[in-house]
């Protein structure tokens, strides 16, 4: 069981802003899109932390900022206590081996002109590990691990179905024997019957190699299945973070409640009895987020201070964190 005192990845007040510029000759900086706006979290060794939220809430940007694929505007990212944000060059490259990513779209994340063997062994080649022959052997091993025939090594991505392509992407992520993998919506592009195959594979690999996952998704029922703990993000901020069961059975934040109540249940009787919280309006622009609590414009429990004072991110009971004035 993952333990809270054994932290692998830490985010401290992490911010990622995208500048908005205007002007033809001189590009003036006129504002920022606050994609990730001050998030603090721990990811424990060996756990799967689910990260849910609607499109544009900053969950993918947060993942990329952890890997330093997008350098944060402010804040710290610690891997085993070492701050990646200030790290450069060789030292960062060495740390990067330990962190990998599996992408959402298996049709766009594999180069169509490369063979499966080239794709899977590219990380090894980039980091100059193993001889060519040893790499070939490693590719066969990796394909086996993800449930593909090693005989596929010389084929091209277009010869595979979506589920098989996602397996290739997983083999590539495993090539460096990482500790930590960010799964960025790895099953959203797949059909239901294939989703289950990929989720099962990810779970097997986690046990086999002791992997730590950040599992980013918008499908709340799949996140519930795979995660130990779950964080809910809205407009660049984490609103609630708790143990999986605590979050799904006893959500505290009004946004989490609304999000859970919007998930359709595959049972007509349950659907009939169900009281839905239908949120009014839409997510405000992250270029101009509302003052106070970012959710107050759609919140059905708001009080006067909500549009003035930003709620404090605090632990309300053991391991259950929330940012809301009403809790």
């Amino acid at each position, binding site marked *: 069981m993952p333990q809270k005192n054994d932290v692998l990845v830490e985010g401290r007040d992490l911010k990622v802003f995208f500048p908005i510029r205007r002007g033809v000759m001189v590009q003036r900086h006129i504002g920022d899109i606050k994609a990730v706006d001050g998030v603090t979290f721990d990811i424990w060794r060996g756990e799967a932390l689910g990260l849910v939220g609607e499109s544009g809430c900053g969950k993918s940007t947060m993942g990329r900022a952890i890997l330093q694929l997008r350098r944060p505007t402010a804040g710290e990212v610690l891997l085993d206590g070492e701050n990646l944000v200030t790290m450069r060059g060789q030292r960062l490259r060495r740390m990067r081996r330990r962190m990998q990513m599996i992408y959402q779209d298996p049709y766009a994340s594999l180069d169509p002109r490369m063979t499966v063997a080239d794709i899977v062994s590219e990380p090894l080649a980039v980091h100059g590990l193993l001889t060519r022959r040893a790499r070939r052997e490693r590719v066969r091993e990796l394909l086996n691990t993800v449930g593909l025939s090693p005989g596929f090594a010389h084929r091209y991505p277009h010869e595979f179905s979506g589920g098989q392509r996602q397996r290739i992407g997983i083999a590539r992520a495993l090539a460096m024997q990482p500790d930590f993998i960010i799964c960025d919506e790895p099953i959203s592009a797949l059909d239901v019957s294939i989703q289950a195959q990929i989720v*099962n594979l990810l779970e097997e690999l986690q046990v086999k190699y002791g992997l730590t996952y950040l599992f980013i998704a918008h499908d709340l029922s799949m996140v519930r299945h795979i995660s130990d703990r779950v964080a809910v993000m809205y407009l660049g901020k984490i609103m609630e973070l708790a143990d999986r069961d605590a979050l799904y059975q006893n959500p505290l934040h009004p946004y989490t409640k609304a*999000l859970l109540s919007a998930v359709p249940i595959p*049972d007509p009787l349950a659907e009939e009895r169900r009281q839905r919280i239908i949120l009014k309006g839409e997510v405000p622009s992250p270029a101009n987020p509302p003052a106070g609590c970012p959710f107050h414009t759609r919140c059905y429990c708001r009080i006067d201070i909500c549009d003035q004072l930003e709620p404090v991110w605090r632990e309300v009971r053991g391991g259950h964190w929330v940012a809301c004035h009403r809790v």
Partner: protein
Amino acid sequence: MAPLLAVKDLTTRFSTTDGEVHAVNGVSFDVEDGQILGIVGESGCGKTVTALSMMRLIPDPPGRIVRGEVWFGGRDLLRLSEEGIRQVRGNQIAMIFQSPMTSLNPVLTVGRQLGEAMELHMGMTAKQARAHSIELLRMVHIPEASACIDDYPHQFSGGMLQRVMIAMALSCHPQLLIADEPTTALDVTIQAQIIDLIKQLKRELGMAILWITHDLGIMAGLAERVQVMYAGFIVERADVRAFYAHPRHPYSQGLFAALPQQNGKERGKLTSIQGVPPDLFVSPQGCSFSARCGYSIPRCLEENPQLQEVAPGHEVACWGDIIDGGIG
């Protein structure tokens, strides 16, 4: 009484350089007046092609409706003249699509596009159409409708555009609305808003709906009757409660088993359906699901089962069920 819509033996194929794709294979079903019929299936199962074939919107070539009949209002839509079918489309039968962002013309204002169908089908003047458009936008709860009507599609969010699409579809008071995954591109909270809106409009206007989705959750709260498609065939059809209480086709059962348990205490393994859907280049000799099915018997490989009623109102195309009275 005759049903509102009766599809009989609809068969659509596409010719490609690799051969002929059998997209829809002899599909038959009825939609009753005011009913919500759901079609569930995974990508490539033929659910969208079925809807497009009904409306004669299949590009020909490469597509071809090989045979079949689509009876609506005493006429076979597949035998109407081009002018005749155009009178039906967007008028008595309207459609909304998966991606509202690509369904509207980006260089025309929303008002212009909304008014078009009304001027065409209802003989309204531009002024009348504009007034009616504003009313429709209010009906789908678009704030400040009279100002928004002169905006271009890119000025709307995805959820708002889908509302515009719904307003457009309902502008000529259709008797049948075909909704092809209208919420798939939207976020869950916006999806809940749109489903809520469609349910409310259905109560007020009383049209029938043919709802196409891959999401068993959405279907449960919406449809009255459900049919499951696989590889271009309807493999199961039942009332929504009967279907969810007791799915009978092994493929339907597989779809349910692949869903994570809602109250999932234990992190057990998900039950996935082994293998992948068949390619549709060859007309299968046996049941098209037999290669992935855990219950297949020799007959499954030889003869394709037809949809048969195995319990009142519950039809299944599976030899295991037809011969042995149920599997699993």
